[in-house]
């Protein structure tokens, strides 16, 4: 449908223009018909007038002819006519002459020849009669009347009248045809303009309705939650296509906003879930050492209170256990705080130059009791880092080393722990390797997660919070570096840390 490709305004303009054109056409045919009717009336009037004049002239000529004949007969008796009689006759002749001219005014191109002929004959006749009256009393030279002047005039008058009638008949036929034609055209134009107007209006309503229906269906589907639905913009033009396009644009941005919102909600839910998990884990981790502390303390209190002799060695051992659990609790709380700071983004990095080799030595010295506990030996290779300084956060590097080194000490018995530091390719490479129990690949995969130890017995047998490696991994990220683990069960583990020697 061609109107479907037009805009709403264009459709209305087109419909209005069509209706106006049809209206103008109707008015024009109506005016044409009216003109034909007035022509007809005019022709009728002329014809009536001409017929009247012909009759008048004919009558006048006949009367005068009779009178002249009578006078011509009477003149034999030499009876003169009076002057008044003559003047009256002249006046009547002048009146006929006036009527002749009036008839001339009514004649047209078609009757002109016939009129001229008649006019000449009638004028000759009238002139003859004027002469006749003028010379009537002059007996010496009376005007002789021609034998057939009157008949000639009357004949040519009849011819003229016949011609005039024929012309009038012809004209009235033409006018009648014209009137019939304009009437027919008016009716056809009227009926067809009503039909065309109706068709136009119905088409306009239908196509506009169809366009609006498409819009409504689109809005309803979108409103019902089908955010991917779009209205077909190509099936309309102009304002409705613009509206569809605007709606589609709105739909697209709404869809984007909704998907952003859903993403943000999913993120928030995941974060909330993680927070709950973290809290549950913290609660669990704190309760384990607290159980030992409270349990042993209550037991020792009971032993002190029951009056029996106290096994001093056992008592000392139990107190040591309480202290160990207390320290473990403290370490746990510190690690939890660190991890919480990292997770909330409140852990700041303070970069300053320091000597990495010196830091390694310092950590190893501080942890020498731990090294000795399981009868382990230390091998140190720091030659590659001795001569230059690095720019990083020394406190965090120290904690990374401490966590890795104490892990190595805990999981190795009668073995060797190798700590190395080296600077190459703008990176500080630190490695801590042990000959301890090692880890399976499954254990390696999750050991950097918070609260995860390679084995649930680990914290009992080896201590630790399950947060140390999570902190190491987070600190390495914060310093722009990375940590990698390689391990074989029963043979040992090796952690390789790479940190940039200048802030990125």
């Amino acid at each position, binding site marked *: 449908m061609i109107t479907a490709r037009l805009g709403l305004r264009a459709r209305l303009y087109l419909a209005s223009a069509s209706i106006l054109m049809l209206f103008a056409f109707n008015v024009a045919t109506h005016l044409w018909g009216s003109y034909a009717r007035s022509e007809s009336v005019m022709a009728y009037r002329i014809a009536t007038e001409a017929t009247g004049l012909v009759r008048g002239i004919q009558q006048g000529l006949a009367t005068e002819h009779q009178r002249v004949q009578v006078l011509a007969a009477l003149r034999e008796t030499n009876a003169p006519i009076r002057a008044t009689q003559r003047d009256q006759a002249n006046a009547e002749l002048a009146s006929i002459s006036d009527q002749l001219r009036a008839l001339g005014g009514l004649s047209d191109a078609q009757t002109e020849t016939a009129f001229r002929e008649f006019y000449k004959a009638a004028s000759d006749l009238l002139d003859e009669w004027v002469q006749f009256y003028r010379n009537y009393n002059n007996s010496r030279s009376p005007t002789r009347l021609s034998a057939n002047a009157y008949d000639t005039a009357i004949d040519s008058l009849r011819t003229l009248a016949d011609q005039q009638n024929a012309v009038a008949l012809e004209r009235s036929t033409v006018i009648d045809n014209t009137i019939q034609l304009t009437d027919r055209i008016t009716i056809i134009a009227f009926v067809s303009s009503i039909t065309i107007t109706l068709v136009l209006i119905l088409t306009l309503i239908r196509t506009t309705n169809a366009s609006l229906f498409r819009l409504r269906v689109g809005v309803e589907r979108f409103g019902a939650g089908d955010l991917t639905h779009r209205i077909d913009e190509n099936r309309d033009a102009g304002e409705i296509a613009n509206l569809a396009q605007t709606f589609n644009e709105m739909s697209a941005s709404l869809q984007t906003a909704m998907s952003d919102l859903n993403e943000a909600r999913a993120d928030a839910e995941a974060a909330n879930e993680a927070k709950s998990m973290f809290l549950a884990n913290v609660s669990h981790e704190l309760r384990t050492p607290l159980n030992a502390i409270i349990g042993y303390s209550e037991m020792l209190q009971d032993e002190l209170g029951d009056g029996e002799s106290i096994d001093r060695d056992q008592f000392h051992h139990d107190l040591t256990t309480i202290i160990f659990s207390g320290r473990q609790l403290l370490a746990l709380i510190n690690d939890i705080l660190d991890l919480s700071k990292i997770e909330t983004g409140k852990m700041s990095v303070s970069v300053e130059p320091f000597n990495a080799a010196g830091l390694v030595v310092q950590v190893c010295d501080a942890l020498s009791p731990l090294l000795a506990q399981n009868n382990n030996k230390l091998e140190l290779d720091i030659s590659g880092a001795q001569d230059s300084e690095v720019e990083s956060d020394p406190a965090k590097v120290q904690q990374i080393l401490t966590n890795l080194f104490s892990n190595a000490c805990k999981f190795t018995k009668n073995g060797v722990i190798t700590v190395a530091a080296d600077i190459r390719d703008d990176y500080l490479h630190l490695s801590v390797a042990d000959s301890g129990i090692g880890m399976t690949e499954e254990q390696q995969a999750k050991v950097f997660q918070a609260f995860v130890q390679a*084995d649930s017995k680990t914290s009992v047998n080896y201590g630790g919070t399950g947060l140390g490696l999570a902190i190491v991994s987070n600190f390495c990220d914060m310093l722009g570096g990375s940590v990698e683990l390689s391990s074989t069960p029963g043979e040992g583990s090796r952690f390789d840390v790479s940190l940039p020697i200048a802030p990125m």
Partner: protein
Amino acid sequence: MGNSAVLLVEDNDINRDMLTRRLKRAGLTVINAADGVSALEMMRENQPGVVLMDMTLPILDGWEATQKAKEDPAISEIPIIALTAHAMAADKERAMTAGCSEYETKPIDFPVLLAKIYQFLEGSDV
């Protein structure tokens, strides 16, 4: 050993040592297991009057061990008290669903635990 024995299933050495000694001081007979599989074996062998079951255990965890115990007609009647540092309501529900008769959160309120143990032991023929 008979029905008056208490089977303590706990993988943490310190906590197992502490609780064993306190239960013994209270006059109870205590036997030990450190994982879910040996716990089931001990239950079948010794038919203890009550089991104190930690939930986080190696090899076979406390929930699974409890479920298996309830499916085995030879030991399904033995009441199990869950002992766990998991303190959330959902954790208690999980233990009860697995088939535990009672639930105690670490750190343990020893008198309360003792009362529950006696309640189960008296419920049997002791």
